[in-house]
């Protein structure tokens, strides 16, 4: 049985607003503002993070043609919306939570029956699909709360992402603008045509280590110009990149989860008053190769980059 949003916010520390967000529209933003923002810790979980790799061909919504934005672009859009609203959110990938929650545990706060740590927000009143979503998540031991869909304005309730994509493809900008949050209208248009207006410096965190010289350089760079972002790329170990969405992450030499490391990084940036940053995973495949270049000839790992 789903909790009400008020019960959930009072009992559970972390709220998760999940979706494919292809495209992000006013309905998504409305739930973000009305339901998610009341939780102490706020997560936007981006479903189907790498749309170029088909997860499940029985699930029509994962069809590549319906999923134009990769993970990074959707993360950037949500970061923009959150900054606009003055909210400090976390963004995490989510593979297909209705079927299985395994790799997601690396990115989300710890949760168990005895120690409930997170709650999934679902607009249960929207349609049968959302009701099934509630049932699926509950059967996996997760807590679900109702976003109060019925309370949303009619204009928000009438929006579907497929409609927004159609407006975009037909260049019906007036209608498009009616559906997409003002703060990301231009950015959505740019990203959808592969025109990213920002530049990035990527600082890797491998295992539990960060190179402070790189961090220092990135912070100096971001403070010296406009339209710049630091990307903190945290390594995540996976068994097999070709089917990684269902495989549990192995942490290599890391003692901490992605979630713990990203929280620590957020603390550092908060103390330094730096807000132009994004935190994203990149995947380490467990493949050992010998590094000949280095004088000590030690073993190292192959890296695969999460492009989605």
């Amino acid at each position, binding site marked *: 049985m789903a909790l009400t949003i008020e019960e959930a916010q009072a009992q559970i520390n972390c709220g998760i607003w999940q979706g494919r967000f292809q495209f992000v529209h006013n309905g998504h933003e409305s739930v973000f503002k009305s339901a998610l923002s009341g939780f102490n810790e706020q997560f936007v979980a981006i479903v189907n993070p790498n749309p170029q790799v088909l997860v499940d061909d029985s699930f029509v919504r994962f069809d590549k043609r319906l999923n134009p934005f990769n993970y*990074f672009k959707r993360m950037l859009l949500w970061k923009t919306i959150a900054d606009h609203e003055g909210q400090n959110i976390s963004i995490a990938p989510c593979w297909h939570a209705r079927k299985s929650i395994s790799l997601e545990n690396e990115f989300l706060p710890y949760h168990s029956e005895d120690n409930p740590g997170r709650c999934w927000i679902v607009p249960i009143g929207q349609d049968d699909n959302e009701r099934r979503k509630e049932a699926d998540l509950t059967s996996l031991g997760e807590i679900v709360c109702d976003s109060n869909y019925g309370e949303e304005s009619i204009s928000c309730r009438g929006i579907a992402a497929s409609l927004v994509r159609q407006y975009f493809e037909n260049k019906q900008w007036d209608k498009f603008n009616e559906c997409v949050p003002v703060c990301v209208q231009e950015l959505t248009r740019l990203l959808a045509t*592969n025109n*990213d207006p*920002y*530049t*990035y*410096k*990527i*600082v*890797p*965190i*491998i295992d*539990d*280590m*960060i*190179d*402070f*010289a*790189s*961090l*220092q*350089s*990135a*912070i100096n760079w971001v403070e010296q110009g406009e339209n710049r*972002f630091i*990307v903190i*790329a945290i390594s995540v170990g996976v068994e097999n990149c070709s089917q990684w969405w269902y495989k549990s992450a192995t942490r290599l030499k890391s003692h*901490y989860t992605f979630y*713990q*490391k990203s*929280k*620590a*990084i957020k*603390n*550092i940036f908060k*103390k*330094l*008053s730096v807000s132009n940053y994004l935190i*994203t995973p*990149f995947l380490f495949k467990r493949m050992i*190769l010998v*590094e000949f*270049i*280095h004088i000590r000839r030690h073993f*190292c*790992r*192959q*890296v*695969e*980059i*999460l*492009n989605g």
Partner: protein
Amino acid sequence: MPSSRNSKWLINSSLKYAYGLEACLGYQNIEEVSNVFVDEANLQVFIVPEIKQMTKEVTSVEQEIKNLKDKIEYFLSLHMMLSTNDEKQLCDMFVDTPNELERLLVKIKYNVVSVGEATEIYRNIKKQWDNK
């Protein structure tokens, strides 16, 4: 990840071989950050959930920054409300300085600036304060 057209990986030159990152990224899109050798002991230092700081002594410049911050804060607290026009002007001029100094202390704490760079920034602020 962002497109390689508008992004660069920052990799310390003394770390770049350690994980085969450079090879995997195709030797492109990489900016070497420093030629300074990072010793192995320092590589072991990083994260716990509440941030394990890099352990180091409080430097004299940190102490000096704290002293200057206290001095300015004391001045602001004395003159912010009841003061002459000149004093008010000074308050306006230095009202953000304690926060600036606090940020500088945090930057030193997490090695975001070197002690040398911090000293230079501190000296500039101190000079403005002494000449007020």
